[in-house]
């Protein structure tokens, strides 16, 4: 049997005439980690918004195992097996950590008891079971990120799209996150898309990387290809002073 595939096929979107994405295609395979990098404003979050039903593309389509997903609302995309995390965390702050994950179980149609069992299983698997009864709004940054990932893992989605999960983390914390992402792909057979500015991390954990700049794909390939790419080096040097230090590892 073929592993599940999530395919974006020549996606384009404009906001009030401004092109945010043009002709963007990529393919996620379950069990593999795919990196999506590019300067701020390149359209990375917009692509994730499209693949999860939050934003309608102006052109192109996206499919899960050959089935078109265009037009599905976000909650149905999630039920169909594509989960995401948010750049800003977006936890339910007044709920406990356990309840945050439980909500994802309810969204899949489970009752509270069954949702709680799944939530506990995921917390245990990530290794943050001790946080279960904490209020999500009181968590430190790093834990917040891991809870957000946990919420996306409930119900064993086939794909998980992560928007800058390591932003603001220390080197040490980012490494731990990298190991968690690899475990998600290997142990849970999940296809992962990870948007990340920490290029060292991306080169370490991804088997395939797509580079966006101004809404267009300027390079795609394995880490070695990206490392050598003149276009990538140029894009990073040219636009973003604050990530020049990241680009230095290229």
């Amino acid at each position: 049997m073929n592993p599940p595939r999530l395919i974006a096929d020549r996606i384009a979107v404009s906001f009030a005439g401004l092109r945010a994405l043009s002709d963007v295609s990529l393919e996620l395979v379950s069990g593999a980690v795919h990196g999506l990098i590019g300067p701020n404003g390149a359209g990375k979050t917009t692509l994730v918004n499209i693949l999860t039903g939050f934003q309608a593309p102006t052109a192109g389509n996206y499919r899960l195992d050959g089935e078109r997903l265009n037009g599905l609302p976000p909650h149905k995309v999630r039920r169909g097996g594509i989960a995401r995390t948010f750049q800003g965390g977006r936890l339910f702050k007044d709920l406990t950590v356990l309840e945050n994950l439980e909500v994802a179980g309810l969204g899949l149609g489970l009752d509270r008891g069954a949702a709680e069992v799944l939530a506990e299983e995921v917390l245990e698997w990530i290794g943050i079971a001790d946080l279960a009864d904490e209020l999500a709004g009181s968590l430190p940054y790093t834990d917040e990120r891991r809870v957000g990932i946990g919420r996306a893992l409930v119900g064993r989605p086939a794909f998980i799209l992560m928007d800058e999960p390591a932003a603001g983390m220390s080197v040490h914390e980012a490494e731990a996150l990298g190991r968690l992402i690899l475990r998600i792909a290997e142990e849970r057979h999940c296809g992962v898309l990870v948007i990340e500015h920490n290029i060292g991390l991306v080169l370490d954990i991804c088997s395939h990387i797509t580079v966006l700049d101004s809404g267009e794909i300027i390079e795609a390939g394995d880490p070695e290809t990206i490392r050598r790419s003149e276009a990538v080096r140029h894009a990073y040097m040219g636009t973003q002073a604050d990530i020049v230090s990241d680009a230095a590892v290229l």
Partner: protein
Amino acid sequence: MLIVVPIDLFASGVTTRTFTEMFVQMVLVVGLYLFVGNSGVISFGHVGFMCIGAYATAWLTVPPMMKQFTIKGLPEILAQAQLPFLPSVLLAGLLAAAVAVPVGLVLMRLSGIAASIATFAFLAIVNNVYSNWDAWTAGTSSIVGIPTETNIWTSWLFASAAILVAYAYSVSRFGLALRSARDEPVAAAAAGIDMVFQRTIAFVGSAFLCGVAGALYAHFLGVVNPDAFFLSVTFTALAMLILGGMSSLSGAVTGVVFVTLLISLFRTLERGVSVGDASFSLPAGSQEIAIGIAMILVLIRRPAGLIGNREFKWTRSPAKAERRHKPAI
């Protein structure tokens, strides 16, 4: 709730009536809380469901003899009906809930503020229909002869039952799902929650309780007319909910008690009190002004209401209302 016992035994008729009315309002406000508190969408329309419930119980319980004269256009089955109190009140709630299904399916698609405005339009429509539907509602004149079965005991029982229903909803999967969508709609959608569906469920459930409250109120007054279920009740109910704290059941209940006490204090002052030889009274209408001022003061001092989003007994840990702003997706 043991206060009911001494009040029933010793207090004057006036106090008993005040408390009976308070319990009826508790059913209404708890019903309103079920939707507003869990969804975060303010509704100005729930008194419309109260109106629907009140007339439904009038159709079902006024003696056929009297209905012949006041509401001549009822179909035979209703014209002949004379149901007992309890089934009639429950049927009244069910009718309100049934009306809430199509209304909810339409309104819950709207965004928060648009939905609130639309609920107000719903209230206006209900008021208009019931004011002009002469054959069934006797227009703006009153329908009399509703058995006055709402006393302090029955109203207390219904208030307790309403609190239990609202609590059961809050801890159910539906309550948790809707609260998640209230606090973070985007993340809730990404977690698979269908917000429109969840809001509609809460809307229908709360319409049921408000319909019951309307029926109880009809059985308290003995008469109904459309304007008894319009702006002034809407204002009082929202004041109770907001003052107590609209995001917790404890807040809703506290708000009802607090505003009831405030209203009866000012009613007494409006009637006049004598201190020694001197007597003075407040001008009529002071009561509404006092509620308005109390609401503003509470909102300034405690924007989340007297109780905030805590619950009295069943709290896991006190919630900090402190919110941090996150970047948009």
